[in-house]
């Protein structure tokens, strides 16, 4: 491991953390446009985070230290996940220490902390949100694992940079198994990031909330970290999708500035398109009844398994 690799690794994380709110802002802008509304500023998520960081944190009297610690744990998990996902370059020294399965574990860690913190205050809504989040989580995680397994079978490795690199080198190979996996992945992305049709990120109806219900008791810097982590999670999922299904443009070595600039430009273009597509999905769909969410995720799981079976049967 050389110094340059450490630097590119650091750079990848910084880019992810810094650009995540921008991606969320772009999705919100597209949503507003598609709904014939005037869009909020692109930088609105930064302003929200900035505003929250300047506020005084209010905590319930009877919360345990876990409640204070959880936002840092959640944000830390998401930032660590950003270090494993090859968004810009394939040369990520850290990725060799943690593969795609560990990545699912990182997301699960964040979820566990969020759910524990939500229950910590003892309010009805926190428990309600935590319960719903865990119900979705236990269905989403296996589906995501299956998606990774399908991709891993092709690449022969569970390391994301290796998977991305393998797919990058077979420019013209058609993998039907990946098509199944891609649809499954998209469904998991929607469910895991509290998007319509599973959850509504912009709702004010406390009884319908999933993710929002868990964070109702947070304020100020804690809430800022949680909001930032949520943006980062969406960014991570988008980059995971690119790494698995659209890896072209990710640099093998980020050492030279022109390569770096190229990789950044390609990532930006992909995010622009992905954000618009996500907004479109959210605009044309209504939110499903919460009891349909398990069906939705079971369908995702089934698709992912089908992808895996296709891969095993066809042996492309």
């Amino acid at each position, binding site marked *: 491991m050389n110094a340059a690799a450490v630097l590119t690794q650091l750079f990848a994380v910084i880019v992810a953390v810094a650009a995540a709110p921008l991606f969320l802002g772009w999705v919100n802008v597209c949503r507003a446009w598609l709904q014939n509304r005037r869009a909020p500023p692109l930088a609105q998520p930064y302003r929200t985070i900035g505003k929250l960081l300047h506020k005084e944190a209010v905590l319930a009297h009877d919360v345990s230290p876990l409640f204070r610690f959880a936002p840092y744990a959640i944000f830390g998990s998401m930032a660590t996940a950003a270090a494993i996902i090859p968004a810009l370059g394939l040369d990520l020294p850290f990725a060799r220490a943690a593969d795609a399965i560990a990545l699912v574990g990182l997301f699960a860690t964040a979820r566990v902390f969020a759910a524990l913190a939500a229950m910590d205050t003892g309010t009805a809504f926190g428990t309600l949100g935590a319960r719903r989040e865990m119900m979705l989580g236990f269905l989403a995680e296996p589906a995501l694992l299956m998606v990774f397994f399908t991709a891993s079978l092709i690449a022969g490795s569970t390391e994301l940079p290796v998977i991305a690199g393998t797919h990058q080198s077979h420019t013209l190979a058609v993998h039907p198994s990946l098509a199944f996996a891609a649809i499954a992945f998209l469904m998991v992305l929607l469910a895991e990031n509290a998007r319509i049709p599973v959850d509504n990120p912009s709702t004010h109806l406390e009884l319908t909330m999933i993710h929002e219900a868990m964070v109702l008791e947070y304020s100020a810097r804690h809430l800022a970290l949680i909001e930032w982590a949520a943006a980062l999670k969406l960014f991570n999922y988008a980059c995971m999708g690119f790494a698995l299904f659209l890896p072209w443009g990710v640099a093998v070595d980020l050492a030279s500035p022109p390569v770096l600039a190229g990789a950044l430009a390609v990532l930006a273009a992909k995010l622009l398109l992905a954000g618009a597509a996500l907004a479109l999905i959210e605009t044309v769909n209504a939110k499903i009844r*919460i009891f349909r969410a398990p069906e939705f995720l079971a369908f995702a799981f089934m698709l992912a398994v089908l992808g895996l079976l296709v891969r095993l049967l066809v042996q492309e």
Partner: protein
Amino acid sequence: MNATLAVEHAPVTREQWLPRIEALHAAGARLLTLWASDERDHGEGDLLRAAFLQPGGVVIVELALPDGAAPYPRIDELFPAAARLQRALRDLSGVQAEGGDRRPWIRHGAWSDGDAPLRRDFRGGTPDPTPYGFVRVRGDGVHEIAVGPVHAGTIEPGHFRFSVVGEKVLRLEQRLGYVHKGIERRFTELAPAAARRLAARVSGDSAVAFAWAFCLAEEHIRGVSVPPRATFLRALLLERERIANHLGDLGALGNDAGFGVGLAQFMRLKEDLLRVNAQVFGARYPMDAVVTGGVAIELTPAGAALLQQQFSVLAGETERLRAIYDDHAGMQDRFLGCGKVPGELARRLGVTGLVARASGIARDLRVDLPLPPYDALAVRCASAAGGDVAARVAVRFDELAESLRLGGELLRRLPPGEVCAPAQAPAPGGFGVGLVEGWRGPVFVALETATDGSIRRCHPHDPSWHNWPALEHAIIGDIVPDFPLINKSFNLSYSGVDL
């Protein structure tokens, strides 16, 4: 032209009270409201009145309760909607029913049991810190979710106590009264013109309906006959109020199902309507346009053309949006079968207005007791049989289309002439009622004036009283996240019942 409502007064003794009401119940009459007035200054104790709607008009059963009289026989076993009215009556007028639920309804501890703010000698009560006793549901895995009175969105305050197992709702109990503002008492302190302004503000989304009902009562007492042009303009305002509310509700229903496009589109249409209101009537919400004797607005030919054009634009746009709502699988999945109030239950609970029409009870005052100008318009009553959210959405769309048609019809037939009867000297004291089909249902106002023209008693009644209990039934068996959608499909008034 029969311009006034047929009102029959039926004074009864304590023994006749229940048989008389039982007879009305058996004849299919519907309870309008229950109220009492303090007649101690005339040496007569309280006068309890129950108003019922029957096919020919309104009948008011009157029971004198001298000081120290025994509690009156309860009527909530015949008319379940009376249960809350009886509790509110005790809180405000100190008139006690025999048996029944003894918990306060309007009273939130600002005064004590026995203090009666509507008594003429009431000068402030002593606070009562007794906590409210919610009904507890016990069982394995049952827990409570308490929502409100302060909500995450900007809506009116009300408390909802859900008893749930997992996501399934076993019981919902409402606690209202958070916006009690002493309106009924305030009426007696105001001159009639100011009282009319107050009536328009009982429930802001039904301003025209309440103002019209108040004016009908006052005009009845004074013997004022309203010029035909004024009745047409009143109906025009009322239909526009209905259109504005239905547009807003349909948008919000889309939004609550996670379909933001619906909200954006319907809100755009509602905003257009309000802007034209401001342009033509001088106010986005023309709250003070209906006045005693007529209206305080005049419609120019240019204004009429603008309204006519807007009605046809709205008709086209809402038809397109209805097609989108009807064809959207995701939304229909949320609407259909959700929050069901079957027709039989609706009849038993005495549900009224829009909610009743969505449960197959096709009753609409504009059809059943058409006052001018509705007698000349042949209003088509919207109705759906489902009793679920989808049915309430469908009724809203139907009523929207009908109101847009009526609006155009009113403008085409608008007679020339005065818009307001000339002012008259205040008539000697009297009693009058007004009954208007607002967008939620029948809006009722009873007014009693003294010989000097001042208001002795004014009792405005919002149809939400009858539909709030139905909401408690509609959610049973559904899941917690469906409640906002069901609640929005009812869209009941908090302010209108927390007088």
